């Protein structure tokens, strides 16, 4: 997991300054928001001059999946005290959820939930914030590193996330809708085109799923 996180932390740290974030703001974003894809999207939007409300709304939509993790993890953290839950909640990322849920739901059982969660949480957190810090340093020490084409690494990573998801007609239709509406709605004020495109695409995906055989919709 750590191996998968570090390259993105490095790239995020390196690019954050070219998007107009100060080194401390970049580090604070990794420490406080601690959500890789939302952070990448935020600096992409920042660099494009998108306003604060749209960036926060996009963060909300992109991070909605954490509600699903929260609901799924609930039985395993119920026994913990409120302060522990409040603290550990911050570290519930995609990667942490994958590791924790895999272990807690395993028939092997027999693991102290609080200690295991804390160990996973701090390891992944150190990897993300540490690699962000190194990336920020690289961005400031190596002259012109922002012009090496790293800004394209974000587009590439988004493409790389989308492609494996295009497994059925509903997802493909959602992608086509998102792309076409985003182009058509590009001129909307406050860069609302992104939201309009994303919500239309989700609606199209769901509608198409309903008309398909259930088996295909589930894949």
């Amino acid at each position, binding site marked *: 997991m750590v191996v998968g996180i570090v390259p993105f932390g490095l790239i995020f740290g390196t690019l954050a300054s070219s998007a*107009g974030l100060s080194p401390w703001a970049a580090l604070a974003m990794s420490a*406080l*928001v601690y*959500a890789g*894809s*939302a952070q990448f*999207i*935020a600096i*992409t939007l*920042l660099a494009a001059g998108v306003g*604060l409300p749209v*960036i*926060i709304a*996009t*963060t*909300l*939509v*992109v991070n*909605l*999946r954490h*509600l*699903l*993790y*929260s*609901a799924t*993890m*609930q039985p395993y953290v119920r026994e913990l005290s409120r302060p522990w*839950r*409040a603290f550990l909640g*911050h570290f*519930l990322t995609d990667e942490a959820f994958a590791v924790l849920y895999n272990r807690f739901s395993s028939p092997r059982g027999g693991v102290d939930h609080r200690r295991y969660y804390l160990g996973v949480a701090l390891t992944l957190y150190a990897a993300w914030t540490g690699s962000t810090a190194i990336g920020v340093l690289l961005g400031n020490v190596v002259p012109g590193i922002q012009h090496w*084409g790293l800004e*394209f*690494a974000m*587009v*590439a990573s*988004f*493409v*790389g*996330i*989308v*492609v*494996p*998801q295009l497994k059925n007609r*509903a997802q493909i239709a*959602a*992608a086509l*809708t*998102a*792309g*076409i509406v*985003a*182009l058509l709605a590009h001129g909307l004020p406050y860069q609302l*085109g*992104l939201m309009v*495109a*994303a919500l239309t*695409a989700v609606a199209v*995906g*769901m509608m198409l799923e309903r008309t398909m055989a259930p088996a295909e919709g589930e894949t």
Partner: protein
Amino acid sequence: MNTVLLLAGMASVTYVLRVGFWFGAGDSLPVWFKRALRYVPVAVLTAIIVPAVLLKDGAFDLDIHNARLVGALATGLIVWRFNHLLAGIGGGLLVFVLWRWLSPLLTAWM
């Protein structure tokens, strides 16, 4: 842009979603919501990618010098074929850099 507000907004929105079910609120999500979530990554990311790759200063940029388009296609192809995210990003980045560097030379030479 107020950076403190940006960070506070993004952080609190994310945190609330993470602990959303841990403090006494209901313990399951409606089925339609779970279904909608499956389309969010594709919807949001494609809505970002397509204009970023195809537009330049708000107008279509479909000529041979568009290294972003070529790089994105390369990433898509690698990930589709080999199902390896980092290889796709690295390969696409390489194609992007080479294309940006070579395509002006190519047209100058032709």
